[in-house]
């Protein structure tokens, strides 16, 4: 898995985010439209795309897109 593809999937969980605006150093919880629904969408997306069970606490403790990517990568 590569981070570009991960960012594309992540951006899809937001209503109106251009994937090009999202970088590995982006704080994903500061993106427009971030809420609990996007959080469970991320969990469902990671399960569907990568077969990885991400937990609510892992999302809560992560800040940057790259951190989230590394968690998913390490569990896949």
């Amino acid at each position, binding site marked *: 898995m590569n981070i570009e593809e991960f960012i594309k999937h992540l951006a899809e969980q937001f209503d109106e985010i251009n994937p090009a605006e999202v970088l590995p150093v982006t704080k994903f919880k500061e993106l427009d439209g971030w809420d609990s629904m996007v959080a*469970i*969408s991320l969990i469902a997306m990671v399960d*569907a795309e990568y077969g990885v069970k991400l937990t609510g606490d892992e999302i809560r403790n992560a800040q940057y897109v790259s951190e989230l990517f590394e968690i998913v990568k390490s569990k896949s």
Partner: protein
Amino acid sequence: MNPFSLERKKILITGASSGIGRIIAAEASLAGANIVICGRNSKRLSETFDLLHQGDNQHHEKVIFDLSDESVTLEVIQQFNDFDGIVFAAGSDLIQPFSFTTSQQLKAIMDDNFTGQALMLQKLIKAKKINSGASIVFFSSVNGTSIGSKGHSLYAAAKGAINGLVRVLANELSKKKVRVNAIAPGMVETGLMKMNEEVVSKELLEAHRKDYPLGFGRPEDVAYLCIYLLSGASVWMTGQSITIDGGLGINR
């Protein structure tokens, strides 16, 4: 006689190997009932069996089987004697946005929360295993009854199906004075809540707790309503989905 007593009543409880079903079994045995518990997990079902109060003249049984296996259900039902009460407490949840739904998930959640129970009751009725004056209790939820929490679409849909079934069956079975009701609880501290906690994080769940003027419920809090519905005290109550939610619904 105490109108809330369950003495000499024979009561079938599905989903008794954990959560609310387990505590209902224990409380109903304390109220004097003869209990038949069923569930999928043999070890956990035995743990529930050990919790049952064993008074003089009380006789309890346990049956291990999976409600979703129709042919097994039919076989098991033939061995049963008639019941004065039936509680369908089995259930499962899935937290994800509706847009990710697969047909397998839809089927699994409907099977666990609706189809298995509906078909089991159909067979019990057909085989005439339900006594006149019996009480049937389903588990609905505030989800699918009065609210729709994000991420719980399939669960809420299955609970909505329960609510519809309860209304029609209450009418159809009224000739035999059989009552059919559903309990619609808010968040109760069980294994299902633990699953919620893993997905939505402890923090969010704690924030949600504040929406409940009386906090989250304990399985006992719900079990006592179930005892009332199983007892002769509720002979005039039928076709209802009764909300029990620690005040969640009036907290606006």
